[in-house]
């Protein structure tokens, strides 16, 4: 009899345990979000939940800065506790989505610009941060960065990073083959031909990830049709069927035909392609400035290689309407505050503080280019970094990455079409038509 009762109790306990385990996380989350209400000398005790995507392993530099900033903020505001939740890039995106659909967003979190932001703004999940922009942060941002986070005239997140995409090249390979940095697209094609004739892969491209190929298309479009035509087509006010843009798509396929890209590029991830460039097996690599640490300060990469990396601006095309100082790029991630946060005002203050501190520390600590204006003249920085930083300030225009700017469904079509274009599975005309069809659907 005793035995049976015992097993019954055990079974019950197990069942209850499961039920409780299921609820556990939710409860903890809600408790933490609520201010405890006790009135201390330093004001109400508040806990701000902060979710970000810089885990210690992958983004050591950024992770350290985040911790430093949080510690300093907590020291200045003893009543505030900041609770971090750290996830990896892709997991972060998925979790944010799930939390968004169940109306459980953290008080402060990281978001991407434009198209990514749209559903959250439509769902009234992010709060406008315009009051912060007119306050202490007024004029602190690099021109054109906050606009990418604005929808219907309101800014829903404050940018942290800013990136442009130069063509990095291996100086050693260029010297060995007697090549000069190209000024025009004709010269560029000549370089491609020389290298490919000698059996050296001219360009590292990992087009499994698709946005990587999009960079090439965008630059060709910018140089041939001009920045305005490209930007209009992406925003939907113009069309991808513009003559210049179709010509850019043709030019992409011409590059593919001339063996400009590494073998099997459509099956390689960006990481795999990058390692071709890092191993000196490919001569050029078009990528964002977020890669700078790998070419300057990252000790894990041989110094001899880092010293041999240079960059050039995407060359101009003869007869094209583009300007050599026009760049493809855009803000990386920004910080949002949840509309339904119970500690909205405190969260906003924290975001303001974070953005201010991030600028300076991220330059030296993580080697990224911040979205806030920073005086780099007094800092000891790698030459490559300074050069690119200066180029960015000279930029005549910066076109936001197409897949970031488009709405999610159109972006997906764009990326799929890019892979098909590079794989020669669609004609340039069909490429343009598919874009028009996807963008006109409006989702």
């Amino acid at each position, binding site marked *: 009899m005793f035995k049976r009762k015992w097993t019954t109790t055990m079974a019950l306990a197990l069942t209850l345990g499961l039920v409780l385990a299921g609820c556990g996380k939710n409860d903890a989350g809600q408790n933490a979000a609520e201010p405890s209400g006790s009135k201390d000398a330093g004001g109400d005790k508040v806990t701000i939940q902060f979710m970000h995507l810089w885990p210690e392993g992958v983004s050591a530099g950024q992770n350290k800065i985040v911790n430093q900033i949080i510690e300093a903020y907590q020291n200045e505001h003893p009543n505030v506790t900041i609770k971090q939740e750290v996830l990896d890039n892709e997991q972060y995106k998925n979790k944010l989505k799930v939390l968004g659909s169940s109306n459980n967003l953290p008080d402060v979190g990281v978001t991407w610009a434009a198209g990514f932001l749209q559903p959250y703004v*439509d769902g009234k999940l992010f709060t406008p941060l315009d009051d912060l922009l007119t306050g202490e942060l007024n004029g602190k941002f690099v021109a054109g960065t906050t606009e990418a986070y604005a929808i219907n005239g309101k800014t829903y997140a404050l940018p942290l990073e800013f990136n442009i995409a130069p063509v990095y090249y291996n100086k050693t390979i260029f010297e060995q083959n007697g090549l000069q940095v190209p000024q025009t697209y004709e010269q560029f094609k000549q370089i491609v031909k020389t290298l490919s004739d000698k059996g050296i892969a001219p360009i590292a491209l990992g087009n499994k990830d698709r946005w990587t190929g999009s960079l090439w298309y965008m630059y060709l479009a910018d140089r041939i049709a001009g920045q305005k035509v490209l930007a209009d087509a992406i925003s939907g006010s113009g069309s991808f069927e513009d003559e210049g843009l179709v010509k850019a798509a043709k030019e992409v396929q011409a590059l593919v035909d001339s063996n400009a890209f590494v073998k099997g590029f459509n099956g390689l991830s960006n990481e795999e392609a990058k390692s071709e460039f890092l191993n000196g097996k490919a001569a050029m690599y078009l990528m964002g400035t977020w890669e700078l640490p790998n070419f300057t300060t990252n000790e894990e990469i041989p110094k001899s290689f880092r010293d041999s990396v240079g960059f050039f601006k995407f060359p101009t095309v003869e007869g094209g309407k583009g300007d050599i100082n026009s760049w493809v790029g855009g803000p990386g991630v920004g910080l949002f505050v949840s509309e339904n946060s119970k500690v909205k005002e405190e969260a906003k203050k924290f975001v303001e503080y974070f953005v201010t501190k991030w600028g300076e520390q991220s330059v030296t600590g993580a080697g990224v280019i911040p979205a806030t204006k920073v005086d780099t003249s007094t800092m000891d920085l790698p030459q490559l970094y300074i050069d690119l930083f200066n180029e960015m300030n000279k930029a005549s225009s910066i076109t936001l990455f197409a897949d970031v700017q488009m709405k999610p469904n159109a972006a997906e079509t764009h990326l799929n079409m890019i892979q098909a274009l590079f*794989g020669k599975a669609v004609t340039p005309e069909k490429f343009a038509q598919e874009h028009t069809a996807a963008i006109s659907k409006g989702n």
Partner: protein
Amino acid sequence: MSNKKMIALYVLPALLLILAIVYIPIVLTAFYGLHEWNGIGAMTFIGLGHYKTLMQDKAFWSSAGHSCLLAIFSVLSLILYLIVAMVLAARIKGANLFRKIYLIPMLLSSVAIAQLWLRVYHPTNGILNSLLVSIGIDNPPAWLAEPSIVLYALFIPILWQYAGFYILIYYAALKNIPSSLEEAAKIDGANALQIAWKIKLPLVMEVVKVTIVLAAVGSLKYFDLIFVMTDGGPNGASEVMASYMYHEAFRAYDFGYGSAISFFLLVICLLVTWVIRKLTAAKDTIQYS
């Protein structure tokens, strides 16, 4: 406490768990599939609209074709696994070791297998292409970048991954056959082939039927290696139903459509299971002992 209550109590934890993580989500998926929903904002009811789109969605049907092809290959490869299991069960030398070797891929996580095969297939540094170049083939294909071969290149690791699992199942089933039957057949003058065909195969037929269902349904909802190795590319050449569903839901933020696809996938899997069970239904179960 009565025995029945006791049984109910013991079943309860597992029942709750399976309700919470399997059956309730299925009902929810069916519900979402009837709505236009981006995963965050408001849902609008559109009835069977998504299913109408689905019927005309060329990209979906091409991915369905790829899934079916995988199912066919998986089922056909069962023949090979059965032969291997028969050889192993015939007490050859080192059978135990081989059985363990075949099972190893099954123990690795899919992502690890994907990383391994990505290196095998790498267009310039990969083991496969290095080998091909060394034996004088000048321009070996970039396996994962050619739309016409990528699917077959992916099938190899997928089949390889599960080979050990089926071999193990067959091996266990074959070991269950009483040796007296085999001995009796030998005395009657049957050769090895006849024993395999007339005695062993009929006796493991029930197990074979189960594995056919497992292989077919498992292939139809297959996702892991394809997602990691090619992400359905290039140009959707290796897209399968599950990866297409993932892309629609999580990349294009069309959760309504994604849910409709996954519900349709469930219906297909149930249908295939039913058809296979019908086709392989035993007229009379064979029992020799």
